[in-house]
């Protein structure tokens, strides 16, 4: 059933966020540390297990796939509730930051590809 997938996703989400809160408290950051990342890791491990073992059937997987497909629309909604008016005053930061980010990235790609090629 679709709800099984949604429930598994929700379980992973809550467990990950809870763990992130605990880690944050341990680190003294007073914030959630990597909760989303932990939740993703749980979901990868549990959904792989579920598919292999057979208890996460096609219908159940659809419950997770639906939310995965809703990711971009939700990000669109998220971007529409930001304080853009205020951010525009810092627009140059965004543009230059993005530009510098991809320039550094493009420079690194040939270096790392070579590293991988040598290993193989």
């Amino acid at each position: 059933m679709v709800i099984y997938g949604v429930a598994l996703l929700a379980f992973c989400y809550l467990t990950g966020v809870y763990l992130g809160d605990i880690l944050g408290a341990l680190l003294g950051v007073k914030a959630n540390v990597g909760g989303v990342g932990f939740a993703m890791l749980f979901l990868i491990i549990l959904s792989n297990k579920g598919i292999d073992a057979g208890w996460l059937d096609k219908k159940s997987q659809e419950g997770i796939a639906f939310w995965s497909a809703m990711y971009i629309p939700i990000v669109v909604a998220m971007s529409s509730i930001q304080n853009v008016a205020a951010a525009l005053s810092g627009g140059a930061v965004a543009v230059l930051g993005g530009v510098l980010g991809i320039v550094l990235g493009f420079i690194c790609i040939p270096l790392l590809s070579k590293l991988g090629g040598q290993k193989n």
Partner: protein
Amino acid sequence: MDLMAMLTKVLTKNGLIFAFVLIGLTNLIAYKMAGLTKGRIHGSAVAIFFGLVLAYIGHGAKGIASIPMFAGIGMMGGAMFRDFAIVSTAFGADLREIKKVGAVGVLSLVFGLVTSWIAGVAIAYMFGYRSPVDLCTIGAGVATFVVGPVTGAALGASSEVIAISIAAGVVKSVLVMIMTPFVAKMIGLNNPQSAMVFGGIMGTTSGTAAGMAAVDPKLVPYCAMTATFYTGSGCLTFPSIFYLLTKAIFG
């Protein structure tokens, strides 16, 4: 009988449902417009840009949700649904495939996150930002437009800084889509190995998928395989390791 007032009441009372319609329409228009560019710019990038335009129209701390009738979009785009949907994108990543990516994949993720952090922090510092929270949030935004707000929310950054971080991520995503076909030859982006490195370094899923598709559609799964871990790793490391690093340097 005031039909307009009744409609407004229905839309306000059912805010989240109304948000589904509005965001659906926004996506429809965005993807139609992106189609006109023949796949050079991905629909998601246009849609996110439209989202930022809507936020500007709302002209408040909560963007378009500052207008009561559109408050439901605030729920749809709020932290709960956002994080829930992000977690769901991890579904489909196969552990066996991940093991095949190996050390270079992990290394490319590390390089991608570190270069984003350097770029974001350097530019933000140049523009007068000094608090470790602001610097780290903008660096996280350069990583992707998701890592930015997640980090900002975790560290308690202001909505302004979070908006800058999203904008930086959107700029990067759009640039990756546009630039990749032009630099592909120069950086040797023509085999699975370099495609995996590309995904790990650039990270932006929509950006790399669209950029890679314009170079060679067969290489898309390879870059997606590493890119899919980027946001998760970013959400894990930016509010923790990178924040502590930023605090140690600028705190």
